[in-house]
């Protein structure tokens, strides 16, 4: 089975091909043997891929992973394997928990910026604003004020990147 990783907004799949004697993974059809796998902890790490050392720094931040590798910064997120996402997890806003819609801040067709609150929900007496996952245009708002929803339900959809010019 493939893990779905969103790296800097782009969806990638990474497969575990073998575990013994060394871990072998497949990414975009390329197999890589990972002979030294480092530790799970935050901080500087060294792993070995195809016999070459790869140094990086890594930190956990809630459900995201932050990386510094080869003089670049990356942000990674692991998608729930049950997810149907295909657009890199960036085309829709899902409910992080079951609840009800308190306020809808935007309308279909609105241009929004990443991080802008789209909708305020209430779950377990806590109000939370759900932000836009990226810049884009709102394609659909699937729950209106007062309606309830389940965890992981899609609440807002953004237009496909491809449709925007």
């Amino acid at each position, binding site marked *: *089975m493939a*893990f779905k*990783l969103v*790296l800097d907004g782009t969806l*990638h799949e*990474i497969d*575990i091909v073998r*575990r*013994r004697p060394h*871990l072998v*993974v497949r*990414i*975009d059809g*390329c197999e*890589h043997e*990972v002979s030294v*796998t*480092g530790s*799970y902890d*935050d*901080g*500087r*790490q060294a*792993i070995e*891929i195809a016999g070459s050392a*790869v140094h*990086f*720094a*890594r*930190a*956990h*931040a809630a459900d995201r*992973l*932050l*990386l*510094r*590798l*080869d*003089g*670049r*910064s*990356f942000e*990674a997120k*692991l998608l729930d394997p049950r997810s149907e996402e295909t657009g890199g997890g960036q085309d829709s806003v899902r409910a992080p928990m079951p609840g009800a819609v308190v306020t809808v801040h935007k309308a279909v067709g609105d241009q929004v910026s990443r991080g802008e609150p789209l909708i305020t929900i209430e779950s377990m007496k806590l109000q939370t604003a759900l932000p836009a996952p990226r810049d884009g245009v709102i394609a659909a708002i699937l729950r209106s004020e007062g309606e309830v929803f389940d965890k992981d339900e899609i609440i807002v959809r953004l237009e496909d990147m491809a449709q925007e010019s």
Partner: protein
Amino acid sequence: MSSSHATNPPAAATSIPFKRILVANRGEIACRVFRTLNALGIASVAIHHRVEARAKHVRMADQAVEISGETPVAAHLDGRQIIEAALATGADAIHPGYGFLSENAGFAKAVVAAGLTFIGPDAATIALMGDKISARNFAAARGVPVAPSVMPTQDIDAFARDAAAIGFPLLIKAAAGGGGKGMSIVRSASELTQAARLAASEAQRYFGDGRVYAETYVERPRHIEVQVLGDGQGNAIHLFERECSVQRRFQKIIEEAPAANLAPELREAICAAAVRLVAAAKYRNAGTVEFILGADGRFFFLEMNTRLQVEHPVTEMITGLDLVRAQIEIAAGHGLPMAQGAVAQHGHAIECRICAEDPAREFLPETGAVRYLGVPEAEYLRFENALDPGQKITTDFDPMLAKLVVHGPNRDAAIARSIAALKELALLGVTTNIDYLARVLGHPAFRAGDLHTGFVAEHREALVIDQPTPDVLHQALIAAALGFREFHDLAFSVPEPHASIGQWRN
């Protein structure tokens, strides 16, 4: 590390009359000043707003006093509370750092009135240099070049005559103007009258005021500034120049000393002009005289900053002097650390300002938290910061998080070391300009020293961060995957019989 290169003569450190100094600042610059106080054996007092009670500068000081304000910045601008804190803790002097109250004449005056020493110039000098017009007039009267200009007039023929006497190119502006209306660049006398008439009619149409004025237009200007020290008695020295032409949003992001490709005579002329100004003002303290330098070699006084500058470490690195110590000794009446002829210059230094901002979004400030900080270490490198693990990065204060200052035997080496250090530097948890700075340093125009204040705009496309190669991308994906518990568990923790079956668990 700041003091490791310091070669200030072993002046009368022991006889410095200050027992305790309050630093009216925060962040990296407060920490920077505390380091020198520690080295000199002077007790230190920090001030802080409630939101920064556990900040590094607070922990680093011998004592700390909380100050209040509607916002943290407002607290740091409340001179009365700060002077009270100094008196209450028995401090005998206040070091203002940069920003906040460092160039506030009223504060300097109040500090002295309270019987304390202000580690800076006297209030009158701050006021003189703080006003653009008075500073410009003062400079011009002492033979320091200021950009020639022709005063606003409606008499186009007289205007054209006076303007032609300045020389070309000229920038013609509406006296009441703004937004580029009525503005034009004139490159020869033959265009002048026509351009002036056009500008006057546009000015009349847009602003109801047909007066126009002209000033020398500096094309591709470089920002060159001179570090000076004055003893308050009319003696002054310079510690060479810095170049700060790489700017975004009108703020410097990369500074270096010395400036690249500056002809020795021109360099000498600029530094001498700065010393002339500072000596004439009987300036006391470290200070910076800023100039605009044109491609034709003409340079003009811009302004003088009467305080320690953000980018002072590059000067410390090439001269081996501790500027904070020099400030304290001057304030104590010990005079200048050395004569002009004794000021040495070694190699080249570059400072990169690490800011919480997104270069891909017009450098707008970013927020986050410090999830991991990995700093390269080398004897030629200073990482000036006050960051703590887990620290929230908010918009309460300036977006500058740290300064990476690197020395090399020459400019090429300093660039190479800076790029390597930026690549190694890991500041995870907030978007920063670290990678952008590395791209600027690596750009052929930067390497060639072909700098001007429009550098960031001119090379905009070339400075966009490129995509990683597939190899690097795959390495990043593997490194990331191994950091996710789900992946890690599946790859390693499954008992052997299951390991060969693999796949799903509940």
